[in-house]
C-alpha cells in the first residue's frame, strides 16, 4: 500500500464525520468497481447514521446492496466475496451486533489467509459504530474494540476526526486484510476540515493531536475530543497535557506513544470501553513493560465502569469518562 500522509493539504473542506466517511466510500467506489457496500438500511434510508446517503443514487442497488437482517449471513457473504475478488465494505449497524457475526469475523475472515498457508486474501472492511451517549442503552452502546484487537488477523481502526475518518477509511478499503473500522455514534455530527479528493491516512500511525510536557493522554475515538477539552482546562492551571490519538489500535503505533511517554514521564490511558480487559490495559501494560524507567508515576487508566450502559441520560454519563473525570485524573497524576 502506498500511503501518503496528508495532514493539511491545500484543498480542505469542512465536513461532518459522516460525510467524510461517505466521501471516502464514494471515491473508492468510483475508483474500483470491486468495492461494494453491503448492509442493513444503507440504501434509500442512507444508513442509520447517514454515511451512505446518496450512494444508492450514484452506484445503484447492486453495489449498495441492502440486506435483510442476517448479520452472520451478511458478514460471511462479505468474506466469500472478498476471497473471490470483490472488496466489500460491510456496514454493521451497531458494534453490539458483532456478537452475531463474530464467528465469520474471527474464525473465517481473520484466519483464512493464515490457515490456507497464504493462498488467500480477505480484503474487506467491517464498518460499524459504538459508544454511548444517545440513550440507546445496553444493547446499542458498547465499545468492543478490545475483542477485535485481541484477534490475530484483524486490523482495528478508530478515527476521531472527519479528516482521519476519510483518510483511514480509504486506507482500510485499499488494505488487503480484514479491517474493523469502528466509528462513534456521537462523532457523526462533529465537523472538521477534510482534504478533498484522494486522501489516505496510513494504518498504524498514531497522531499527536496536542503537544504538552506534563503528561500524555493516550486515547482514541470520541474520548480524543474529551481529552482535548480537558487539556484546555488543564492548561488554565498550567498543566500541559499531550494528547495522542492512537487512531489505529492494530497495528499499534508504539513508537509515537512511547516517545510521548519518554517526554512527559506520566501517562493516562483513556477510553470509553469497560476498563476491565479494555484495550487500555494493553497500552498501559506495554508502556509499563517498555518504558518503566521513564515513568515518574504509575501508568494510569481511566475508562468505563464495569457495567452495561444504562438508559437514563444522567446514568449514561456517569459510567464513561467525562471531561471532568479526565481533568481530575490528570491532576492526580501530576500531583
Amino acid at each position, binding site marked *: 500500500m502506498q500511503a501518503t500522509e496528508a495532514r493539511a493539504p491545500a484543498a480542505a473542506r469542512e465536513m461532518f464525520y459522516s460525510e467524510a466517511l461517505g466521501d471516502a466510500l464514494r471515491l473508492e467506489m468510483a475508483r474500483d468497481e470491486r468495492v461494494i457496500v453491503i448492509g442493513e438500511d444503507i440504501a434509500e434510508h442512507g444508513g442509520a447514521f447517514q454515511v451512505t446517503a446518496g450512494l444508492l443514487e450514484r452506484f445503484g442497488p447492486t453495489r449498495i446492496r441492502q440486506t435483510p437482517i442476517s448479520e452472520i449471513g451478511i458478514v460471511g457473504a462479505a468474506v466469500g466475496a472478498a476471497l473471490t475478488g470483490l472488496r466489500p465494505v460491510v456496514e454493521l449497524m451497531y458494534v453490539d451486533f458483532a456478537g452475531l457475526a463474530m464467528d465469520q469475523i474471527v474464525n473465517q475472515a481473520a484466519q483464512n489467509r493464515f490457515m490456507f498457508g497464504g493462498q488467500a486474501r480477505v480484503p474487506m472492511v467491517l464498518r460499524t459504530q459504538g459508544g454511548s451517549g444517545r440513550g440507546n*442503552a445496553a444493547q446499542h452502546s458498547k465499545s468492543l474494540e478490545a475483542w477485535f484487537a485481541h484477534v490475530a488477523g484483524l486490523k482495528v481502526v478508530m478515527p476521531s476526526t472527519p479528516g482521519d475518518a476519510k483518510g483511514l477509511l480509504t486506507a482500510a478499503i485499499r488494505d488487503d486484510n480484514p479491517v474493523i473500522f469502528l466509528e462513534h455514534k456521537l462523532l457523526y455530527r462533529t465537523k472538521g476540515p477534510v482534504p478533498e479528493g484522494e486522501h489516505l491516512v496510513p494504518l498504524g500511525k498514531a497522531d499527536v493531536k496536542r503537544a504538552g510536557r506534563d503528561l500524555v493522554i493516550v486515547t482514541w475515538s470520541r474520548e480524543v475530543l474529551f481529552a482535548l477539552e480537558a487539556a484546555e482546562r488543564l492548561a488554565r492551571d498550567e498543566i500541559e497535557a499531550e494528547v495522542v490519538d492512537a487512531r489505529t489500535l492494530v497495528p499499534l503505533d508504539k513508537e509515537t506513544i512511547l516517545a510521548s511517554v519518554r517526554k512527559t514521564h506520566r501517562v493516562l490511558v483513556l477510553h470509553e470501553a469497560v476498563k476491565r480487559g479494555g484495550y487500555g490495559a494493553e497500552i498501559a501494560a506495554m508502556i509499563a513493560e517498555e518504558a518503566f524507567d521513564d515513568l515518574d508515576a504509575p501508568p494510569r487508566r481511566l475508562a468505563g465502569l464495569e457495567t452495561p450502559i444504562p438508559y437514563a441520560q*444522567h446514568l449514561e454519563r456517569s459510567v464513561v469518562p467525562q471531561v471532568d473525570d479526565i481533568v481530575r485524573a490528570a491532576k492526580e497524576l501530576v500531583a
Partner: protein
Amino acid sequence: MDRKTARDVYRVMRRIRGFEERSATLFGENKIWGTIHSYAGEEAIAAGVCANLRDDDWITSTHRGHGHCIAKGADLGKMFAELLGRETGYCRGRGGSMHIADTSKGNLGANGIVGGGIPIATGAALTAKQLGTDQVAVSFFGDGAANQGTFHESLNLAAIWKLPAVYVCENNQYAESLPVKRAFAVDDIAVRAAGYGMPGLRIDGRDVRAVYDAAREAIARARAGNGPTLLVADSYRHEGHYYGDPRKYQSKDEIEGWRKRFDPLTDARAWIVDEGIASAADLDAIDREVAEEIDRAVAWADAGPLASPIALPGDVYAGD
C-alpha cells in the same frame, strides 16, 4: 371470542394506542431519551394473543415492545416512568424502552437485538416442559427477525423437543426501510413452518378476532403438550420505524392508504358495535377511561424520583 373478551381486547388495544400517542408527545417534548418504536397499527396482535395467556405464561418481545408489555398486563405508570428515566420505572431507568421487562407478569423483556428474544422464549418453554408445568411461552418478533439465524435454530429446537411455545411473527411489511418483498423470496412467511415440522398459519393481524382464534388454538396446543406453532400476522405500522424516521422509503400515498385501510381499532369498533357487543357510546367511555388512566400514569411517572446512581457490583451481579 365472548362479549367480555371483546370489550377487554378493545380496551387493551386502546391502552396501547394511547400509550404510543402519549409517548410520541413526550418524545417530541424531549422528555424521553434514546429511541422509541411505535406499535400503533399492530395492536390487534399483542392484544389478541395475550388475551389467551395467563400471568404465569411467558412472552419475549422486541424493540417495538410497548404493545406486548401492555397486553401482558403491565402498569402504564411504571412503563412511562421507565421512559422518563425514573427509579420507579420497570427497570429503574437502566433499561429504557428497548428493555422494559415485567417478570411478575411473565414478560421477559423487550429486546434491542432483532431476533434476540426467540431463543429466550424457547428456553422458557423448555423450563415449563422440564418442570412439568402447563405454562406456555410466546415469542413476538418481526418479519425482519424471521431472517435471523435465531429464528431458524429456535423453531427447530422447539419442534424436535415439542416445546410449549408459540412463535408470533408480526409482518408489518418492513424491517426498518426494507420492504418484505425485498427480504423474502416467498409471499407467505408461514410456509417456513413446514421446514421445521410445525404448523404455520398466516392470519389477518388487523382483525383481533382472527388473531385471538389462531392464538387460542396454538396456545391450547402448546399447553396440551402437542408442540409449537408459527403464526404470521399481516400488519402495518402506522408510524415510521422510530419516532423521527423520515420514511424516505415509503410514499405518502402508501402511508395514508394503509393507515386508513389498516387500523385494528377502527376495525374492532366496527364489529363490536355491529354485533351489538357494545355501543359506540360504551366504547367512547372506554376510550375516555383509558385517556384518564394515561394522564394519571404520566403524572405518577413524572412525580417519581430520578433513577438512582448505578451501584456496583450489585446492579450488575446478583447476590454480590
